[in-house]
């Protein structure tokens, strides 16, 4: 583009403004024509690029690139924050190429994190209720005042043996074992969750098969993928799983989805089974029947890993205990579940059930599936969906195989903590009432009802990223209970943003978003084990520039804090003299008798992570510094067939 003579003349005499053409002067990362995805990690401390908004003016912006993890769902995909070193604000988020789960890519929610940071309605300072609970009037308080007040309440409750009156009710945990350790250190049975209105149905179905309560499908290597509900666009591990489902599909896998809705997943599937809600199990039983009848089952696996002798003994004591008899017996059990029966139940065409059963049989050990909430949580007996689905894996022997579906724990990291408090000595019946002996998770939806029945009270109740007033079936009941100060003595809402539940709190304490907090993440996104480090990026950027802070809220927007440091501080104040036995669980493993810092907490974990200190040392870094820089670490790759490994004596 070159200016015409007219334009040059008009600019020179000032009729129109002179538009300068700037020379950028920044070097390319690649040869002309080639493009790469991310700036090289050596440049992350000092990355200069052109500001898109000023373009074609070549305005240079100097960024510190700091990895963290997304917190807009459970997956904890990698993010890198681009921190403008001049303003110390996050300009944008991109992916983290070093994150083994997300591999540098994200869903729409990743880059959108910047909107949450800049939300004009977010809570920036600790707030205390003024007037009656639920009046919506607040005053700003200091963290010190809030901590002292809450700590004193808990201390009194613990001193008086009212341990069951302190509870922590969580929506989205987002960490590995941190809170369980804190609650145990306090000596309370204080954990409540949202799981019973969410995944407990699916978890139960899996747990009764193999003691692990989640599936970990190896989609990328599968030949047939069966999804119960829309796992290409929602569900746990959306982005990491969606990547691998399509990878599997591009490598030739067939994709089948059972979903009453025309979801994106259903649309992308080779087979869409629009089953009536609650009938998924019927289809799965019919597939099992076909596999059994046609002899497509994996005999070696069944013989080895299924207690078929016990089954025969229990159901057909008169028969000889041969595998053939076992198969005949199971076929007899499944006789009624014909594809036609399933079609009548579910609306899924019998022909499609036959076709997919054949493909599952052919896929054999390379059959991957996923089922989580939806069918499992939305229907009476929904737990049977996971149970029936897993039976197909047992039949095909695709448990923990390449392209199969593994127990989640094979692909999940278990951190080693600096201190392990003893198990709690209390049983809180407000969480697990005795009349529900089979409850797989806390009967959390009953909490306000039980309080109103006079079965107990909550002296100090923390809700964390949890909004029952809005999301539970009977929000009005929660409102009623929250308003009653004899039921909830003090309600502390830990949340990054306002919610209907926070409205009925005594303290609303602002907790950081994805880039404003510490957490350790590890999820079963594929075959392998990884950890990722969620960190407050402004604090890390400041640290790299030589500026250290005691608490994350000193560097976050306003006084937004994070749970990790909050719990350490609160615990310390609950037991200032150590008489309750709480304090000792929050003492530094590196400085005897002193309060642990958040850096020390993670330093200890990373120093005790298999392979991490060695990898870090190769780059001349400590384990903690390695995680601060890369944000993630691969602990183990290809975690297949762990059931076939010989156990060591100590195991």
């Amino acid at each position: 583009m070159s200016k015409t003579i007219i334009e040059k003349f008009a600019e020179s005499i000032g009729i129109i403004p002179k538009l300068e053409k700037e020379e950028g002067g920044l070097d390319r990362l690649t040869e002309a024509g080639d493009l790469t995805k991310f700036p090289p990690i050596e440049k992350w401390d000092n990355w200069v690029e052109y500001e898109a908004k000023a373009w074609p003016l070549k305005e240079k912006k100097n960024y510190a690139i700091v990895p963290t993890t997304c917190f807009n769902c459970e997956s904890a995909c990698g993010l890198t924050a681009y921190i403008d070193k001049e303003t110390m604000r996050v300009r944008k988020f991109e992916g983290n190429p070093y994150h083994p789960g997300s591999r540098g890519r994200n869903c729409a929610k990743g880059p959108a994190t910047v909107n949450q940071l800049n939300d004009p309605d977010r809570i920036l300072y600790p707030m205390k209720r003024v007037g009656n609970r639920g009046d919506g009037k607040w005053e700003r308080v200091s963290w010190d005042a809030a901590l002292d007040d809450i700590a004193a309440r808990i201390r009194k409750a613990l001193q008086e043996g009212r341990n069951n009156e302190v509870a922590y009710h969580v929506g989205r945990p987002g960490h590995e074992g941190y809170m369980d350790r804190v609650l145990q250190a306090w000596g309370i049975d204080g954990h409540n969750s949202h799981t019973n209105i969410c995944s407990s149905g699916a978890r139960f179905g899996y747990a009764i098969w193999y003691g692990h309560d989640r599936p970990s499908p190896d989609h990328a290597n599968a030949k047939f993928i069966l999804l119960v509900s829309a796992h290409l666009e929602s569900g746990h591990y959306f982005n990491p799983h969606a990547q691998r489902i399509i990878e599997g599909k591009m490598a030739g896998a067939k994709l089948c989805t059972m979903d009453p809705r025309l979801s994106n997943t259903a649309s992308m599937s080779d087979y869409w089974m629009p089953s009536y809600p609650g009938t998924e199990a019927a289809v799965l039983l019919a597939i099992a029947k076909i596999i059994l009848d046609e002899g497509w089952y994996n005999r070696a696996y069944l013989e080895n890993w299924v207690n078929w002798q016990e089954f025969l003994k229990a159901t057909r004591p008169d028969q000889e205990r041969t595998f053939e008899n076992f198969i005949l017996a199971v076929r007899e059990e499944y006789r009624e579940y014909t594809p036609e029966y399933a079609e009548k139940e579910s609306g899924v065409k019998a022909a499609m059930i036959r076709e997919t059963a054949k493909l599952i049989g052919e896929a054999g050990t390379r059959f991957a599936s996923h089922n989580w909430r939806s069918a499992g949580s939305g229907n009476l007996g929904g737990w049977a969906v996971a149970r029936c689905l897993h039976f197909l894996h047992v039949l095909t022997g695709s448990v923990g195989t390449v392209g199969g579906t593994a127990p989640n724990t094979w692909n999940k990291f278990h951190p080693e903590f600096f201190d392990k408090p003893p198990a709690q000595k209390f049983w809180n019946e407000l969480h697990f009432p005795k009349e529900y002996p089979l409850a797989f998770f806390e009967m959390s939806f009953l909490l306000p009802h039980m309080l109103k029945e006079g079965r107990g009270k909550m002296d100090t109740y923390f809700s964390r990223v949890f909004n029952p007033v809005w999301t539970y079936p009977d929000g009005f009941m929660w409102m009623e209970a929250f308003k009653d100060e004899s039921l909830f003595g003090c309600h502390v809402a830990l949340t990054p943003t306002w919610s209907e539940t926070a409205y009925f709190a005594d303290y609303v304490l602002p907790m950081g978003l994805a880039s404003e907090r510490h957490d350790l993440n590890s999820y079963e996104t594929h075959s392998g084990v990884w950890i990722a480090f969620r960190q407050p990026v402004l604090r890390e950027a400041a640290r790299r520039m030589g500026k250290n802070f005691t608490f994350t809220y000193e560097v976050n927007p306003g006084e937004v804090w994070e749970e990790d440091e909050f719990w350490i501080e609160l615990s310390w104040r609950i037991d200032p003299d150590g008489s309750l036995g709480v304090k000792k669980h929050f003492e530094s493993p590196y400085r005897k008798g002193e309060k642990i810092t958040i850096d020390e907490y993670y330093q200890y974990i990373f120093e005790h992570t298999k392979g991490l200190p060695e990898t870090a040392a190769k780059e001349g870094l400590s384990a903690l510094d390695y995680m601060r820089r890369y944000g993630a670490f691969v602990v183990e790759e290809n975690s297949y067939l762990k059931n076939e490994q010989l156990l060591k004596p100590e195991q």
Partner: protein
Amino acid sequence: MRYGFIIDNRKCIGCHACTTACKSEHDVPIGVNRTWVKQVEKGTFPNTRRLFSVMRCNHCTDAPCVEICPVEALYFREDGIVDFDKRRCIGCKSCMQACPYDALYIDPETHTAAKCNYCAHRVDLGLEPACVNVCPEHAIISGDMEDEDSEIFQLLSRQQVKVRKAEKGTQPNLFYIDGDEASLNPSFTEKSDTYLWNAQTRGVGHYAKEAEKLAWSNDDVLKAVMQANGQNSLEGGSVKSIELMLAGAEKARRAYDAPNKGILWGWEVSAYVLTKAISAGVFMVLFMANFFNWGLDSDGALWWTLGTALVFLGLTGAFLVKDLDRPDRFLNVIFRPQWKSWLVRGGYGITFYGGLLTLIAVAAYFNWQTIADFAKIITLLLSVFVAIYTAFLFAQAKGRDFWQSPTLALHMLIHSLMAGAASFLLLAVLDQSSFETGGFLNNFLMIGIRLNLLIMFFEFLTPHMTEDAHRTADMILKGRYSRLFWLGAIGLGNVLPLFLLTFSNQNMTSALAGLFALAGIYLTEKIWVEAPQRIPLS
């Protein structure tokens, strides 16, 4: 080197990550998009699916937006990227009419045009565009299409690919693997019904200036929604043509789409076409009358003509500037010219025409006969140019099929001649000595009207080659514009004046006929300007 995109629909799961990554990278305001995912559902249960199509600038080799842009705010880079410079943009929205792919929008903060620029600021550092980086499925592939080692070259060589609207001859550099006509071709599906945020008329994009007004009363919101509703639907005959097109296939519907941009060229543009027609028309008619000795040879007639031409030329300029989203930059048309743009050519034409009219006035005043005579001949050529250049501008607006009609220049010339004669019939009421009615002016207008009707007849008689043009014609003849067209443009604007002129020689009736004819021209231009803009481009 030539950068291009592939959207691999074998892999795209419609997750909108590209949309948000782009929003974040470029800090794109609410309601406008540089890239978006259109979702279309086709078939009937259970044989149905949702199709995802990532929509954005196609970085065309022969980009109509670059050609039409009057100020070179849009330009080709050497690597094939079509980039833009918001500092030059005047907000004329002609790029939005020229782009057949709906790629551009008016940024509600800068009031200038914007679109996907392939993240040129990243590419210059060797980084992939933000959308490519974020995509969970690697379904967006960027790269140098001339590099045989590149993934994009290999995919283009081995896969069946499809572009949007290949018939436009724009040579798009964005290719779809497994692209589906139901999703890529906007005429396959109706625009979705209006809801709060799916129409920019609700106060974003070009309509951002209305936002404040709309925000404060429910009444206004209701009105806006109703208006937007009208803007979206294609009533009447057009529906029939869609049904015809879909005969045999199940009707597809839009499940998700970017906000509708509404009418971009409004009444200002129809008004400017009318004032321009009058300004050019009076001179043309005067010249012909003098040349063929039909009359109008008085000094009075000359001064009235020059005055009328200059006043209406001034109005023309005022409407043109008013239509800009950056009226403060209107001088860019003259001083930062991009010569291929008919907006620039027209702008210069109007300027010279105004200058020559002034020169004639000066020459007439000082009685410089030779100069006046010479100037008149050049002015005649310029007046014809001024009358018809808009047809070439409209033709440059490749997004609007109906404007590609070869009759459009003739249509504007006839309109201008009619407007000239009609104006004189009105002036006759004021100055009977300079303009006599009942004579050649009446006949001139009658012939003009007959020719006008003939052109319209041919416009609609000849089959429209493209679906969009066909639908526009249906909208005019049978759809939402039929009443305005038949009663207003044809009845009031042509038949009634023809009737009046045929059966009466009275001063007042002739003037009335002139007035109706002018109203008819305005209504016709309103329909011609508006109707094609109601056809969705994406």
